[in-house]
């Protein structure tokens, strides 16, 4: 006999709880969907008792987890599923009485494809009893051999073996601590052990990972979750441990830890062969470690590689976190063709300036450490944009040669009439 537990809650957490409940009765369970699980109960009779007691026990443990739903017990898996999905509470269907219980179910409750459903609907077949009453051979002649099985379902006699779910998540390790732990060092010891085991498992299957998920169950009943993503596939447990250490130092848990869970997302391992003429770069593992150290020192938002933005805003760029990869040539818009390029040194932040104008053209510039008469000026070069945001800009740039011998770029934000020296040409 089989018991089906159907708990139409839908949430991922409840789904996991449902699996836990089912697994507490049998190591072999079939996960039909997130809300529906089937388990064999013949072996439980010896330990718990007849089916109604088994059902009560399942219901009790489910209630402990705050799971509400239905339980169907029948001699076939599909009948148990139908009962659990369509009848509320606990339903135990004795052998031979299947039609009595499920005959009035709507035909839609059968696992049928849209085309078959459409045909049955046109035939006026509304319930399983209607369907089961049709002559088998003629139904098979019209709907194909699969229809025989469907009819058996509709009569509650279709049998099939259980399709057991895989035994646990293979790349997940959990460790329940005997005592609460508040310090990082002992945790690292445990984490190291778990990571070694997981990485060995990956290695034995020629796999690696690009994502590590860490969960600490805390004494205050909350959880501390961290996810680390690696820019390359790895199974180096030492490196992972070091990265975890850095991450935990930057983001310590908000309380004492009572359980540790680590899971890795398996991916194909990296096959790398450097080209003969490719300049040697730091090993990615080392680079990632270094970056992680820098991040913990400088803050995550301040580490990465600069990326030019697709905008007319002069000098606009953003920090791209992740691997330090040189931007592809196409991603740097090149506004001018060949010719000589002049280097430009940005002042960060730009120097506030006072500028004297003559007929709209800068004549004299006063800024911190920069001042002089304008010998030559080119401009204004006017840009404006992002008018659809709160960060719109409208500025004029001037390239000026000053009497101090330098060539500078002056910028005036037109709406504020505020002048800056943005930088100097080399």
């Amino acid at each position: 006999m089989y018991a089906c537990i159907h708990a139409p809650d839908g949430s991922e957490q409840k789904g996991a709880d449902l699996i836990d409940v089912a697994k507490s009765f049998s190591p072999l369970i079939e996960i039909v969907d997130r809300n529906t699980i089937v388990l064999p109960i013949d072996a439980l009779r010896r330990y718990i008792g007849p089916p109604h007691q088994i059902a009560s026990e399942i219901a009790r443990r489910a209630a402990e987890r705050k799971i509400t739903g239905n339980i169907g017990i029948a001699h076939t898996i599909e009948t148990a599923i139908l009962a659990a999905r369509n009848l509320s509470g606990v339903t135990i269907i004795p052998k031979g009485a299947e039609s009595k219980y499920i005959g009035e179910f709507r035909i839609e409750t059968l696992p049928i494809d849209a085309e078959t459903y459409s045909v049955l609907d046109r035939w006026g077949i509304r319930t399983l009893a209607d369907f089961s009453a049709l002559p088998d051979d003629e139904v098979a002649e019209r709907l194909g051999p699969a229809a025989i099985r469907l009819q058996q379902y509709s009569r509650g006699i279709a049998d099939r073996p259980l399709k057991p779910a895989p035994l646990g998540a293979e790349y997940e390790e959990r460790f329940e601590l005997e005592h609460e732990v508040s310090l990082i060092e002992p945790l690292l010891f445990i984490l190291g052990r778990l990571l070694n085991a997981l990485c060995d498992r990956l290695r034995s299957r020629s796999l690696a990972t690009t994502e590590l998920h860490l969960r600490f169950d805390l004494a205050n009943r909350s959880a501390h979750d961290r996810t680390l993503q690696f820019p390359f596939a790895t199974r180096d447990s030492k490196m992972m441990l070091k990265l975890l250490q850095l991450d935990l130092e930057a983001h310590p848990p908000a309380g004492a830890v009572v359980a540790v869970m680590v899971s890795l997302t398996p991916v194909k391992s990296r096959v790398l062969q450097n080209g003969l003429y490719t300049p040697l770069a730091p090993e990615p593992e080392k680079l990632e470690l270094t970056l992680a150290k820098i991040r913990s020192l400088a803050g995550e938002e301040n580490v990465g590689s600069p990326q030019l933005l697709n905008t007319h805003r002069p000098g606009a760029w953003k920090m791209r976190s992740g691997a330090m990869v040189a931007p592809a040539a196409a991603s740097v818009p090149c506004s001018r063709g060949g010719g000589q390029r002049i280097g430009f040194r940005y002042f960060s932040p730009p120097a506030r300036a006072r500028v004297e104008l003559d007929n709209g053209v800068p004549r004299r510039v006063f800024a911190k450490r920069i001042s002089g008469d304008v010998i030559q000026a080119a401009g204004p070069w006017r840009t404006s944009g992002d008018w659809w945001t709160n960060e719109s800009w409208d500025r004029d740039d001037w390239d000026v040669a000053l009497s101090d011998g330098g060539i500078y770029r002056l910028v005036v934000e037109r709406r504020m009439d505020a002048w800056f020296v943005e930088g100097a040409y080399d």
Partner: protein
Amino acid sequence: MTDRYVELHARSAFSFLEGASLPEELAAVCAARGDGAMALVDVDNLCGAPRFYLAAKKLKLTAHLGAEITAEDGCRYPLLVANRKGYQNLCRLITSMKLRAPKGKAKASMEELRQYSEGLICLTGDEEGPLARAFRTGATKECIERLLDIYGKGNVYAELQRHYSRDEEARNQAVMDVAASFHLPLLATNGVRHAYAGERELLDVLTCVRNKKTIAEAGRLLTSNAERHFKDAREMARLFADIPQAIANTVELSSRLQFTLADLGYRFPPYPAPPGETMNSYLRKQTEAGAQRRYQPYHEKARQQIERELALIEKLDLAGYFLIVWDVVEFCRREGILVQGRGSAANSAVCYALGITAVDPVNMDLLFERFLSEQRGEWPDIDLDLPSGAQRERVIQYLYRRYGERGAAMTANVITYRGRSAARDVGKALGFEADDLARLSSVVPHWGWRDPSGTAEAAFRDAGFAIEHPRIAKFLELFQAIQDLPRHLGQHSGGMVIFQGRLDEIAPLEPATMPGRVVIQWDKEDCADLGLIKVDLLGLGMLAVLEDSIQIIRDVYGEDIDLAHLPQDDPDVYDALQRADTIGMFQVESRAQMSCLPRLKPKRFYDLVVQVAIIRPGPIVGNMVHPYLKRRNGLEEPRCLHPWLEPVLSRTLGVPLFQEQLLRMAMIAAGFSGGEAEELRRAFGFKRSEARMREVEVKLRRGMDAKGITGATQDAIVQAITSFALYGFPESHAASFALLAYASAYLKTHYLAAFTAALLNNQPMGFYRPATIVQDAQRHGLRVLPVDVTKSEWKCIVTKDLALRLGLNYVRGLRKSTADALLLARAQRPFANIQDMVRRVPQMNKEELRNLAEIGALNFIDEARSSHRRDALWQSEAAIRPVGPLLESAQPGAALAPLVPMTVEERVAADFRGTGLTVGRHPMALRRRELIRSGVLSAAELKRGRDGQWARIAGCVICRQRPSTAKGFVFLSLEDETGISNVIVTPDLFDANKLTLVSAPYLLIEGVLQNQQGVVSVRACRVAPLILKQPAIPSKDFS
């Protein structure tokens, strides 16, 4: 420093998403700040040229023309028109490149540029121009030499633009170097893309639409600043202070551009008259011959009228045009295609004699001057109604064959941003999520009436948008700014311009999306403004219905019907009209027409002319309907708005109903000339310009002031004229339509089966769904038979015993090719059973077979078997499954299916699902007993109710209407098995029950019965959905 500057490189919104201002805006800003001239240079077209020219003419500007031509090398060549030859060459160049490429992909070859270069001046262009490209590729010398070779020395200008950009300035320096080496004159332009600086945001949005990107993604595709707006001489002189000759040269070049559209060179189209005949003599001959046939006897009054018209036609050199239209009509006659002239052409006895129109204007005393008048300077506009669909396409293709690909073209239809399209595109560009976008679009009303006091802001606020939010505020601003901007060029439904072999000298032509069609780049208003004569070939579903009806009557009834000689004043026809029993009849079947017919009680043909004209938004808005009906029924004295208007209005009891009357009123009351009156009519029919309407109204009032007509009388006259100028019918047009209305009424009354079959075969058309048409026909005693594969044809047919058999065309999902194969196989020998049919019609797929079985079309296929639909479905499933060769010829089992036959309700539901209609009982009839118990009146019972009584009615909603003229009132038509009930819903009740009223397929309504003069309706007080299992006839919703 020069003090004059002419902008010679300006794009308008007619560059389609590459310019943000209408030509009129550009002309206006130039008039306000410019120097008397400007050149419109749109991308690959001259679509905006007429509007730019007309706006400029009004503002006393010189409108230079040109275009940026996209060439195969990827560059855009700005070309300016110097003279008429240049204009013709530009038109031909655009035509040539467009006609040999798929729509939107046209590029000119160097050969084409060379071939059509005379009279054109080439600028070296901006960053998209040939010189900028040459700088990039290093082929500067070759580029300049090629341009000089094509356009000649003195006709190539080195163009400089300054938008405060480093790159551009670097290029300018290079351009000046090249210009110095090749002695090219420098020319400053601003590469204008919008009239005012503030329109840059709109241009950015259009750029996003064009590139299918959101504004956040568009990046460098957007403009770098707002400097591409119109700049005056002072600004440009300051920008080019170091190169004053570049500014001075704009004035010099402007003086070289001699061409404007005033110099178009269009003459009325010629007709290839037979040898030895002039067009005039040939027209006279054909008219005389036609008149002898039409007028029997050819009386003196008609002869005089025709002579008068011919003299004017000759004087105005219009014989060719009349002969072209006559030729079309003759083609239709030869090919058996029904054709009838509509519109003001029906005022012409020559048109009547030539067979172009069917109304005798002499007999009806119609005003010829409405059609053609020397003083008005207005050219005739002949509209021909043709059966919609393939027949009309045959006529269009005939004209292309007759006058050549470049001698005939459909007029364009400029698709502009309005309402939802504007909301959608602006929202998308601003990066709104799909859900928000759907909500934003839904705020824009698309169905009928809008609250006049409601602003867009109020509408968006009501829909729950925080309009203070900067993003929503920006959306609103841009949504309003984009209104009326051109989106793309479509083709007008029927307008054709003909100019044998030389139309591409007048305006550029381009291919339409529909294969085999060519479109001129101007819309019909533009064509009219520039004096181009067009023929409108309009598809009219009713003509196809009449044509098909006549054929069925000939085949089945054995009678020949001549529409020109139908019995006049047939009492049965007028009886049906007076009872508003008019479903399916042309122009008189709508709810509004039905509510008027019992009050107007048409007794003769002219009443029908009035009936057709009176239920129009014009007379309704102008409050003309009730006074007319009251006067007609003797409840009010006929009186005119002013004694001077008596001669004009006495025929319609003092109430203006026709366009001719409004023209006359303007002429008499405000002293308008004929031309001014026509200008007035067009201003109010001219959907594009509020300003133009206001202008004409001011003139009208000024005219009346001068004549001493003031105060309330003036207001009444203005309201009468302005309210229905847009929608009012010309009397002749109403008469033409009334002829068709009479013909349809006559055929429906006397040949119901044939008329209904033809009506069903020409759907969609008219006011009602096929389900309603069938129910109505059944109520009139017609036997309607279901689809049956042993008897049905592709189309609906009439059987020997005058029943109507539904055609296979009504089976949803059944392909025409399958039906043809089925009919072919059946013609060879009848099908023995379903298996036999499936074997012999291998094209039929599973779904088609199941649909046929479900609607009962296979019930009679096996005579030996008393079958029902489920039995057929059972057999069909067995037949579909392939069997091996051994069993292929085996007979199917004779036993009936083990399935329960469908109930009546199930059959009705299957009918609606499979054919969209039922020939069985109306879904409401299935609930009648229960409805009677709850006191619900049927439509038939409602007609017998007394005015003011409380009534409960129920039915399937077949039509919802919220006319813009009805101040928010909603009109519903509920159908049951006995007929149709009308319901009036007040704006408050509608707002309170919006969802139910808009979406419930069946409704239960309670309210006060209004039964006046035979017009029955319920003024709803309570509304509730009625739950029925059956699918409903889908409602047709109108504004």
